[in-house]
Structures are given as structure tokens and as C-alpha cells.
């Protein structure tokens, strides 16, 4: 314990010397982690056994030296310095049980992990680049043969095309211009035609709904059309004097019957 101050002093002198050497190529470092990795090498131990406390001191010495030499360090170097100073205090002071958060040992262990991982990545990067490389150690075909693209047109027709084509030729005379066939519409003409045939049997009052065409009640659109035209046709027949119409109440069924020809 009594030796500690001397040790500390000695190591900090060594750190300062090391830092001075490092500072010469401060531009050569790829960030604080890289600098830490370089500093850890001065410990000449396996990265797993690196003393994070010592590393923190080395780093802080480096930053001090840089300040003395008026070398502007990038901000993230200073952030790392502040964090390492905090880590150092945590490692040196006994843990405060009231304080939350990770322990100094946890933080140190993670830093050691980061350094080891970065070193590992550097090692495999070197191994990767040392591999035989295409275009340097082994080669692809120098005279590739171009794949010729042959375009082939495949004509096709369907049976429908064929029949429509034939129909087109055979029916030039009976060609009728295209019209939209409205199969959901029951015209008034159709309704009149239908009612004229039936009206002769309507001696008594009958609901006009019974004059609706058969099968049109399945589709509401057709039903609506048939209802409208049947009603219009009834009015037309009434106007012609062929039928009488009555409705007992609002929305009550509309009834009609054949109008008997005047005897006089």
C-alpha cells in the first residue's frame, strides 16, 4: 500500500512519455477506441488481462499532454476522457450502495470487451485481405463469350379469335353496330304489350303488381324497372279509356280493372 503512490507516479511518468510518442500522430487514430487499443499495447499483456484502470490513466495523460501542446482534440476524444475519469473514480472508490447503475467493474469489463472485439475485427480484416484475391491471385475468364440474344416471336391465336374472325367474314352483310343491350330494363312498350293481352281478363279490381312480368322479382334493379313501366303502362291504358285505376289510401295497392265499354 505504501508503494502505491510511487507506483502511480512512476506509471504516470511512463504514461506521459508514451502519450508524447502517441501524440505525434494523433491524426492517425481512428477515434478514441482506436487510441485506447494502441495504449493498451504498451501494457504488453493479453487484451483480456488489460488493466482498464491503467488504461484510463494512460488515456487521461494523453489528453493532458495534448492540451499542454495545444493540440486540438476532436470532441469525442474529450467525451471519452470525461467518461474514463468517471470510470476511474468508480474503480478507485468503494461502491456506493445507494447509487444505481452499473458498477465500475461492469463498465470496465465492457470496455475491455469492446477493445478485444475491435482488435479481433482488425485481425480478421488482415486475414481477409491476405487471402488470394480475384484479379490478383486468381483470375476469371479473360475472353468471355457473349451470350447472344435471339429474339423469337411466337405468334398465337385462340379459338375465340378464330371464330370471331370467321364470324366477321361471314356476317359482313348482317353486321349490326354495337349497342349496349339493356337486359335489366323493362320498357313501357313491353309493359303495354303485356298488359293489353291480360287486361281482357281483369273484370274485377286487381292489384297492378299481378301484371308484373314473371321472374323479374329476383333482381331489385329489374323489379324497379318493371314496376315503373307497368305503372306507366297502366296510366297509358287509363288515358286510352281501356282501364280504371283506384288507390284506397296513400301507399295502398294500386288496383285496376277493365273498363266496360259504355252500352250507350
Amino acid at each position, binding site marked *: 500500500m505504501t508503494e502505491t503512490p510511487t507506483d502511480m507516479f512512476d506509471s504516470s511518468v511512463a504514461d506521459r512519455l508514451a502519450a508524447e510518442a502517441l501524440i505525434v500522430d494523433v491524426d492517425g487514430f481512428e477515434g478514441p477506441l482506436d487510441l485506447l487499443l494502441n495504449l493498451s499495447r504498451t501494457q504488453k499483456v493479453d487484451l483480456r488481462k488489460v488493466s482498464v484502470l491503467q488504461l484510463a490513466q494512460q488515456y487521461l495523460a494523453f489528453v493532458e499532454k495534448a492540451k499542454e501542446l495545444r493540440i486540438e482534440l476532436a470532441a469525442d476524444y474529450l467525451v471519452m476522457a470525461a467518461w474514463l475519469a468517471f470510470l476511474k473514480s468508480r474503480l478507485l472508490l468503494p461502491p456506493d450502495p445507494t447509487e444505481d447503475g452499473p458498477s465500475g467493474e461492469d463498465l470496465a469489463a465492457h470496455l475491455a470487451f469492446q477493445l478485444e472485439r475491435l482488435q479481433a475485427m482488425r485481425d480478421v480484416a488482415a486475414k481477409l485481405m491476405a487471402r488470394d484475391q480475384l484479379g490478383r491471385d486468381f483470375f476469371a475468364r479473360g475472353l468471355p463469350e457473349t*451470350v*447472344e440474344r*435471339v429474339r423469337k416471336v411466337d405468334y*398465337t391465336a385462340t379459338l375465340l379469335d*378464330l371464330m370471331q374472325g*370467321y364470324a366477321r*367474314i361471314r356476317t359482313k352483310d348482317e353486321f349490326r353496330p354495337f349497342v349496349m343491350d339493356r337486359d335489366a330494363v323493362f320498357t313501357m312498350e313491353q309493359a303495354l304489350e303485356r298488359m293489353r293481352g291480360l287486361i281482357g281478363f281483369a273484370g274485377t279490381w286487381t292489384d297492378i303488381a299481378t301484371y308484373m312480368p314473371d321472374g323479374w322479382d329476383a333482381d331489385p334493379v329489374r323489379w324497379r324497372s318493371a314496376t315503373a313501366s307497368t305503372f306507366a303502362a297502366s296510366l297509358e291504358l287509363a288515358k286510352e279509356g281501356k282501364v280504371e285505376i283506384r288507390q284506397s289510401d296513400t301507399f295502398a295497392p294500386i288496383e285496376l280493372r277493365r273498363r266496360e265499354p259504355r252500352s250507350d
Partner: protein
Amino acid sequence: MTDTPDIEESLFEAPPLAEQERMVEAILFATAEPVTVKELNDRMPHGSDAAEALVYLRKRYEGRGVNVVKVGDAWAVRTAPDLGFLMQKETVETRKLSRAAVETLAIIAYHQPVTRAEIEEIRGVSVSRGTVDQLLEMEWIRFGRRRMTPGRPVTFVVTQNFLDHFGLESARDLPGLKELRAAGLLENRPPPGTMPQVGDGDIDAEEETEEGQSELFED
């Protein structure tokens, strides 16, 4: 004095012939241009004999997918001539048959055997050579017997390929005018359902048409 070449040879010992063959193989493969024997020797270790290695290499590639061939006074690796077809990538483009071709084909199918003059009479326009050639090339029509009339004109009939393509057992199975009318095809309006009009060339419509066809067959 005469010993000097021997001494040199022993100083720069040439690789075994099998190694030299490997070297020639690698160089011919990787070089962008055919390589002369001199170039090969220049690139290979001193004392190598590229010409001899080439003899073996050439033999090794005999009957293989690629061959060692002489191009002028140089050497190269090339695809075996019978495999040239592999170096072509065929892109098949499907196109609708032209209206003229469809009509001509339809007339032949419905009226076979039929002469060119008869086709023209039915269509009301002359039939171009190209149209008939195209149908012949597609092997949907072929020449039938000559008509025993003056000039002995050739006739056309449809082929088995045609029947296969349209899914027909025989040309007699083609729907008659009455059925065409029933199917709504004689009124130049879209047949029931969503059948596309002639000339709809896109693939979706094509598929739909095929569906339509099978529906017709069920009738």
C-alpha cells in the same frame, strides 16, 4: 564450352510437364486474346516448353465442352462448336396473330381443302404471300391435294398442330354459324361474360380468353 547450356538448365530447372500444362491452361483461360507459343514461353518459368505442354493440353480437351484451338499462330480456349446453342439466350415474345392471318386460318379451317382463290373470294380481299407463309411456318396449315380443276391449284388444309393448339379433335368440331350466333359471336358484341375483343394482346386477357374457350367447349 558445350556444357554451358546444361549448367543453365540445372540452375533454372524447368517445372515438370504436368505443371507446365497447368500453366498453359491457366494462361489460355485468363488471357483476353489468343496467346502465341512465344508469349507462353516468355511468361512461364525458364526452361518450359509451352509447345509440348500445348500438345497434351489440347488432347486433354478433346471432346470436352471447351477445346484448345489454334487461332492464326496463337492459341485459345473456345466453346466446342456443337455447344454454340448454349451461348444463345432465346427470348420468346408472344404476339397475337394478325387479323388477316386469323381470318385466312379460319377460312381454311372451315372450308378445307380450300384454294387461295377461294379464300380470297370469301374474304373479299387478296391473301398476301406472307400470311400464308406465316401459317405454313407455324405448321398450322399445310398443302392439301391439288384441286382437279383447270390449273390444278393447290389447296390448304389445317394440320394436327392446329387441332392440338385449339384443342379440337377434328376441324369438323369447329362451331357452325348457328352456334356462333348462339354464342353471340355473330353480333360483334362481347359474348356473355367478360371475353376480350380480338386484338387484346396483353397476357391477362390472353388467359381470360383461354378460360372463355373452355367455356365454349362445354356447350
